[in-house]
């Protein structure tokens, strides 16, 4: 399992991933495990740029053929951008969960970071635990 997880990302227990971009902002998405569990994604609602979000706050919704799932912000900050392509092509979340299927970019509050998030090894351990 862990060999398929990008090791440059951080992860949450609710199956989001976080990538620190060169400019310092954080890119957020859902993991490959999450998209597989959800099945074909058919609708995505992302927050508008400028919205303030708190860590743990439900700020986006992804809906598959099966069910709706809340996406929780992994950090405190302000939404800089959201992935407009998902409105017409939600299947990007299935096809490229760590790439073209990104959900939003957040400017993290001063002092905020990846502390409290899982690294790839810890997330792999969580997945192994959940599958038991």
């Amino acid at each position, binding site marked *: 399992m862990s060999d398929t997880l990008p090791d440059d990302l951080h992860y949450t227990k609710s199956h989001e991933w976080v990538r620190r971009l060169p400019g310092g902002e954080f890119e957020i998405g859902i993991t490959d495990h999450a998209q597989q569990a959800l099945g*074909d994604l058919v609708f995505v609602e992302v927050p508008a740029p400028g919205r303030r979000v708190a860590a743990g706050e439900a700020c986006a919704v992804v809906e598959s*053929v099966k069910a709706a799932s809340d996406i929780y912000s992994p950090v405190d900050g302000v939404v800089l951008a959201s992935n407009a392509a998902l*409105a017409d092509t939600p299947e990007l979340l299935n096809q490229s969960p760590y790439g073209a299927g990104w959900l939003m970019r957040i400017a993290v509050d001063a002092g905020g970071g990846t502390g409290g998030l899982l690294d790839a090894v810890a997330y792999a351990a969580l997945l192994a635990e959940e599958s038991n």
Partner: protein
Amino acid sequence: MGLKTPLYDTHVREGAKIVDFGGWDMPLHYGSQLDEHHAVRRAVGMFDVSHMGVIDLSGARAREFLRSLLANDVAKLAAPGRGLYSCMLRDDGGVLDDLIVYRLGETAPGETAYRLVVNAGTRDKDRDWISARAAAYGVTVQERRDLALLAVQGPAARDHVAALLPPAQREVLLGLPVFCAVELGEWFIARTGYTGEDGLEIALPADAVQALWAKLRAAGVTPVGLGARDTLRLEAGLSLYGSELDEAHDPIASGLAWTVAFDPPERRFIGRDAVLRARAAAPAQLVGLLLEERGILRSHQAVSTDRGPGETTSGGFAPTLGRSIALARIPTGAAERVSVAIRGKPVAARIVKTPFVRHGRALITL
């Protein structure tokens, strides 16, 4: 660990995601529910429906018994091989199950025989209900646990099954009218389905179903799980027992008044008086909804109409339409424009005529 059909190992080998459905371990999908849905609309797919129940009834008074047991009238089955969709009701009109009844050939002079195909989650309840009432008519009730059921659905379904048959049988199958069944060797083949497409449902000995699956698979038929089965039947506007239908609601409030045979009036079927009262009062109706804004309708969402509140019974994304649709139970006479609460937020929806989709085409204006 739930009950398993004879095709369980085949599903696992095909890579199915297995889920519990009414106590059965069944395939949800084999990779992509959307691809499976489109395969049925555009070509052909096959579904293991062996979890459904097959109950055979026979006896000199089997016809008379079924005219009492079912809300639709088996007197309409003019010849062996004809099929009929019906509800089976409680005395108070609540729907115990929806089923298809086929008239079979005579087993002995003066005997009549019928086959019922009932839902998976209700098969034990149905058998007990039927058995408790059959004895008074001297009718034999036999649950056919020895049979498997495979549905082959889509515009190319009949050609694919016909190709497996010898020429004489092939001709019989291709000439089979809609809602009729024929016995070809050990296969009982009905031209019925639950998708809004042409297709067949085949009952055959449990030990023969794996070979049939393998042959159809080799011919390019797509395996389809319960996920796409649900979106296909929703687009076709067909009710699902446990969602649109249950013991708390009568057929009038479930969009199935057309399946209740009120004539002849002297036929005293179980639930008749209650359904007559419900027809006169008719406070609620089942309708189709099309979501006019972005989002996805789901079951059990609150619906607001000009005549009062209602609720969605099923909802989801309709792959053929690229839009979200639902079935909903709402007050009779409500105006076309309604709103549905999605995560507490009201969104606009419109009442539309069902089916939403039939034979691969949208029947509603998007």
